[in-house]
């Protein structure tokens, strides 16, 4: 070290601005840098020596794994071992993606060890993604970790221990491709602070019993087995509910329907509701068809999967729309349709099916449009009853039909500002 450099260091380097930034700012910068480059900052200068080592996030995700393509599995495990050992202090966020690295069941012990280390170091946000072919059973250390606030798991086997005290601090739980294996008759998960629950492509959800009275967001889709909704009965604060189900259920549909109805009734704060055609079918097959569902006064975004060949679907959809006075966005996915149902066409043609104007409705999107008469009448109805409408977006799988376009253009519009978009289906919706 020559004299000049020494002097600079003593006085506080007048040119080196970045090392003087507060730690939280430098940590924020490190958040945007991949692990490999972030680790290299440790040799930049004396001040930077331990900055990465004390950075509380370790994101060993897809990008990190790319460094090991074509290398041995032992290289990957060696690297993760090194990183964990060199780390100092708490690890608040840990993301690990092991897709394609571990194929043998015997090597799951390695992942178990890493999770053990991380749970001992105060991890709050834990994300673990394994391959689709893996059957990785979650270790006990996850279930015993009381510091977790965010847990995201992909393709794991979720088998809680028998006296499972639950996740005391968990706020968000995101499970994809998870298989639930109950220890007793049910998989009971106590999560008193849980606000967000996502269950996607899961198996064994019929055993699930989640105790989470403060739940706000519930998303359930693409699963193989039905989700028993009874455990959500006392969740009064649900604001987002998205239920989609493609499978087959046994009988007892009456129970399921009443449960779902009760759920909708007991969620006065519901803001976003998405039900695919399975659930619409379930709800529309009620015994008393003219009973109005209760008012959903907070609901502003409604997404429904509708079968336009079924009268009960259409009437239920209209009823839901009528009982949502603050509805702003309406999204209809056409599940099926038919051109022949005279009753439906007649029904939609009468103005009394939707009398009051939809004052707040601003956006309407209809996808998988198939240009049937019923759908066209539906669009016509909406256009004539929405004085505040800004956008009506219609997507269809086939190519655009000029005649249909002309017909759509001719429909009278209650809103002078309404724009009509008619296009071929793309992946991202226009809304």
């Amino acid at each position: 070290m020559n004299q000049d450099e020494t002097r600079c260091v003593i006085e506080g380097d007048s040119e080196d601005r970045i090392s003087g930034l507060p730690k939280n700012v430098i940590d924020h910068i490190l958040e945007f840098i991949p692990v490999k480059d972030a680790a290299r900052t440790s040799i930049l200068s004396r001040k930077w020596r331990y900055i990465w080592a004390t950075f509380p996030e370790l994101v060993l995700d897809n990008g990190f794994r790319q460094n090991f393509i074509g290398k041995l599995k032992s290289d990957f495990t060696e690297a993760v071992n090194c990183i964990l050992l060199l780390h100092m202090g708490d690890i608040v966020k840990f993301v690990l993606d092991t897709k394609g690295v571990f194929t043998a069941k015997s090597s799951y012990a390695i992942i178990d060890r890493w999770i053990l280390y991380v749970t001992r170091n105060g991890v709050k946000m834990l994300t673990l993604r394994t391959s689709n072919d893996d059957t990785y059973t979650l270790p006990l250390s996850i279930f015993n970790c009381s510091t977790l606030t965010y847990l995201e798991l992909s393709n794991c086997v979720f088998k809680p221990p028998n006296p499972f005290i639950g996740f005391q601090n968990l706020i968000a739980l995101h499970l994809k491709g998870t298989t639930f294996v109950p220890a007793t008759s049910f998989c009971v998960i106590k999560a008193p602070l849980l606000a967000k629950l996502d269950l996607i492509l899961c198996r064994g959800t019929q055993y699930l019993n989640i105790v989470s009275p403060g739940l706000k967001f519930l998303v359930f889709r693409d699963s193989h087995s039905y989700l028993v909704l009874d455990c959500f009965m006392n969740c009064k604060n649900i604001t987002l509910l998205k239920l989609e189900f493609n499978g087959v259920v046994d009988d007892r549909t009456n129970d399921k329907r009443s449960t779902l109805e009760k759920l909708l009734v007991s969620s006065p704060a519901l803001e976003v509701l998405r039900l695919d055609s399975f659930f619409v079918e379930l709800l529309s097959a009620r015994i008393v068809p003219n009973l109005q569902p209760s008012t959903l006064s907070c609901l502003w975004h409604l997404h429904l999967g509708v079968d336009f060949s079924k009268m009960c679907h259409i009437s239920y959809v209209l009823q839901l729309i009528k009982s949502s006075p603050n509805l702003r966005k309406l999204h209809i996915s056409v599940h099926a349709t038919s051109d022949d149902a005279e009753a439906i066409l007649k029904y939609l043609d009468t103005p009394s099916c939707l009398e009051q104007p939809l004052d707040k409705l601003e956006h309407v999107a209809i996808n998988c449009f198939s240009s049937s008469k019923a759908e066209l009448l539906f669009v016509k109805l909406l256009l004539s009853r929405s004085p505040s409408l800004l956008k009506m977006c219609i997507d269809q799988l086939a190519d655009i039909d000029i005649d249909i376009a002309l017909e759509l253009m001719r429909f009278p519009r209650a809103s002078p500002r309404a724009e009509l978009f008619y296009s071929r289906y793309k992946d991202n919706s226009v809304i």
Partner: protein
Amino acid sequence: MAVVKPEMKSYIWLQTADGSIQQVEEEVAMFCPMICREVLQTGMGSSKNYAISLPQRVNPAILGLILEYCQFHQVPGRSNKERKIFDEKFIRLDTKKLCELTSAADSLQLRPLVDLTSRALARMIEGKTPEEIRETFHLPDDLTEEEKLEPLRNMTDDPRIRLLNRLYARKRKELKEREKLKNVEVEEEQHVDERSVDDLLSFINGANEDSKSARATKSKKKNRRRKEQARNSSTNNETGNHNQESNCPTSSCLNGDTGDVFSPLPSDLQVSASVKFSPKLDFDDGDIDDELDPAMKEEIDREVEDFARRLNSDWPERMQEILSLGQERRPVPLSVNGNGSLRRYTGLDRR
């Protein structure tokens, strides 16, 4: 008393750390959460006498930049694309300004601007070699070569290994003093630099290093560092200590730790051989293993295996062991190992 301008706008008065006072349109200033809070909670900022004092990190030039940012973004009608274009042009600043801007935005809690500048700084760091980064940010290259080669101190080190390392370092030094009397040339910085980066990378990527040589290299590096520190402290005491203390200013635990590690050591070394070596000693890489006493080598191997076993064992057992070790060797290991074990200890208490 708001100053009523002909355009009927209201203004907020802001005072920067150097005392100068500026007058800013209300909606522009209120875009900053910190100013917003000050106005709403304390009612300050309404006149020149009651100007809101901004945090120290905000100087007038940077305040100008921040207000420019706020002025653009507080207008609600702009599209995302417009905002993005403005942002990209806005952050084309030199690194000094960018760092000042990040710091100022952080103190004003202007989160979107902090994100924007942090990303820009991250882009400057990502994918560059350390030399390039040092040049961009004017960082001093003040790590010794072995500090670069040993990426980070291994906090779970067994204190007994360290003690053994010190013992044979002393022995080796005696041997060296007896044998060699030549001065060493200062190693080429450039050459060592490259090697250190690759080493670090390969270390992180888990290269198949021979475990023994890795251990030996590690311990050799530690000795060199201690020697350097001893040299530094004897010749340039203040700098040495200041270096260590300025290492981790925000983490008091680490601060105490680094301070402790280096101060007792010179005294330790002085106890045995008197520190009468020339400041520049030659350390040939290959010689270390040969000069090791084979018995000591074995012991070290055993210790390291012990450490590996301990790493895999149950936590309570480990805690016991560490605590019992800590009581044996009070001054040094508790601070060294203490960072690992003491921190964990408080961690357990917290939970």
